[in-house]
């Protein structure tokens, strides 16, 4: 009896937590199907009275130079996927190097990776801008990829090192006795065993770059190079917010991340448990 009661209490508390955490997102998706008049009502209803797809049609058909949502998505996909690919390859190399080779300063490097990940913020904006200006990469998606890769790879290295550490060296040694080269045994033994960690690291990079705003707004100035965060910002000006298109666009921006991420989120939890927390 008491156990039952605890269980009911537990489930209702979790439900309450979920409502608080999820309501804002639900509200965006929900309202994106409402007419403009209904969005603006001071006594809103949960279920749209007259569901409409107008806002979605609008963002995909009404394209102009300064507001081009499909182009924003295309740009963001290019940036996020490139960053994810480059960063993951570099992180695999780095993580493996830290895990399997002994060298002076290895521990220091390993720790620095975490510091480098949490350190940058507004203080670095200006100098990073100067640096990009030096490299002639201001207002370029390549510049953005460079910055994102630099910002995110250290964390991935840190995460992957722990994964590689967890794989017994003996497995690789066994493979090399069978005649496999170091590279072969890496691809045949280490890679499959650490796939979960690699996926975790890659997803982490994709998600953080997909919605990044601060660096993007500083580096990108041309309308046709804007990424999704900047695209969303074009629907909001100081005087006026275009709620309908903004909500529809937001929904479209978030859905792919959810689709990509949620099925793997179990791995993500496990990945962090075995990776990030292991010391």
């Amino acid at each position, binding site marked *: 009896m008491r156990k039952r009661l605890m269980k009911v209490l537990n489930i209702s508390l979790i439900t309450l937590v979920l409502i608080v955490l999820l309501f804002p997102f639900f*509200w965006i998706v929900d309202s994106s199907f409402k007419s403009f008049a209904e969005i603006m009502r001071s006594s809103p209803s949960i279920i749209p009275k007259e569901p409409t797809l107008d806002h979605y049609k609008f963002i995909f058909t009404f394209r102009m130079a300064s507001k081009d949502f499909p182009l924003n998505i295309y740009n963001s996909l290019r940036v996020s996927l490139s960053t994810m690919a480059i960063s993951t390859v570099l992180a695999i190399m*780095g993580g493996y190097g830290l895990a399997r080779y002994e060298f002076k300063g290895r521990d220091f490097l390993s720790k620095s990776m975490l510091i480098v990940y*949490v350190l940058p913020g507004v203080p670095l904006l200006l100098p990073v801008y100067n640096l990009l200006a030096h490299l002639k990469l201001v207002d370029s998606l390549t510049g953005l990829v460079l910055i994102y890769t630099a910002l995110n790879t250290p964390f991935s*290295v840190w995460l992957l090192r722990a994964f590689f550490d967890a794989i017994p060296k003996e497995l690789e040694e066994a493979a090399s006795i069978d005649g496999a080269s170091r590279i072969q045994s890496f691809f045949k033994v280490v890679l499959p065993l650490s796939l979960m960690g690699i996926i975790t690291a890659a997803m982490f990079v994709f998600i953080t770059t997909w*919605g990044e705003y601060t660096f993007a707004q500083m580096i990108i100035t041309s309308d046709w190079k804007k990424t999704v*965060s900047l695209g969303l910002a074009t629907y909001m000006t100081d005087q006026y917010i275009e709620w309908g298109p903004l909500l529809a666009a937001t929904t479209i921006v978030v859905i792919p991340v959810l689709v990509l991420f949620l099925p793997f989120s179990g791995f993500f939890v496990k990945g962090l448990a075995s990776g990030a927390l292991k010391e």
Partner: protein
Amino acid sequence: MNRGMLLILPVVILALLITAVPLVNMTYKSLQKTMFGFGKERFIGLENYVNLFTKDEDFLPSLWRSFLWVFENLLVQLTIPMLIALLLQENNLFNRLSRTLVLIPWILPLVVISVVWRWLLEPNIGYVGYLLRSVGLNSPSFFGNKALAFHTLVLINSWHFIPFGTILMLAALSTVPQSLYDAAKVDGAGAFQRFIYITFPMIGRTIWFVALLAFMWSFNTFDLIWLITEGGPADSTLTLPVYIYKLAFKMYNYGKASAASVVSTLILIAVAYAYFKVFSPKKEGTR
């Protein structure tokens, strides 16, 4: 050069490119006097720093506000994720699904977060205002009120961080062997006692790790504040990063902005250093 070093080299170069190079640049600029309009910058030693600490009316208050901001955020971001993690600890279908859903606030872009909260909390058309009115209360102006804006932002920032904190806490909880709980149960320990005497000591380190991440993230919080209040009303949410941004990109005072940036970076490095000094594992072979 060892092959391991070679493998890590690209990452090190990238990391230096966005930390060491900017830091040097920043330090150099912080020693220069910014000339507005034309004219060359010139070396003025520590004058920018002296000005910040003695003459600047906004610097010290914003620094103080930043510490307050971090403190309030840590308070929320360490307790709530722990509680949620405890609720979700048992492995069943409902909990597995919930663990996935809990992540959603964390993967929303910050632009979206700022917009939706501004909207939800708007006194006239916001849903929160509507809920308050329906129980007979007046909705305050959350971001127009000096006293409220700061705390409201803390809650929104925490709302964003909670998923990540929860995941880390869950991961930590999963490292406590079940056998310990079973043994304690046999000895007649209640749930609360089990938490205090088993869980807490075993995951203490993780809590400190989450605290470090939360500290650094909160100390650096910029997008959220900028997008919602721009540091207002009446500077009540003007934390250090927001002030630095204003100095650099609104007042174009690069010298002063750089000096403030150096101070901010030094604080974070000091915190990270202290963390690793205290918590790094005693020398035992590999790490």
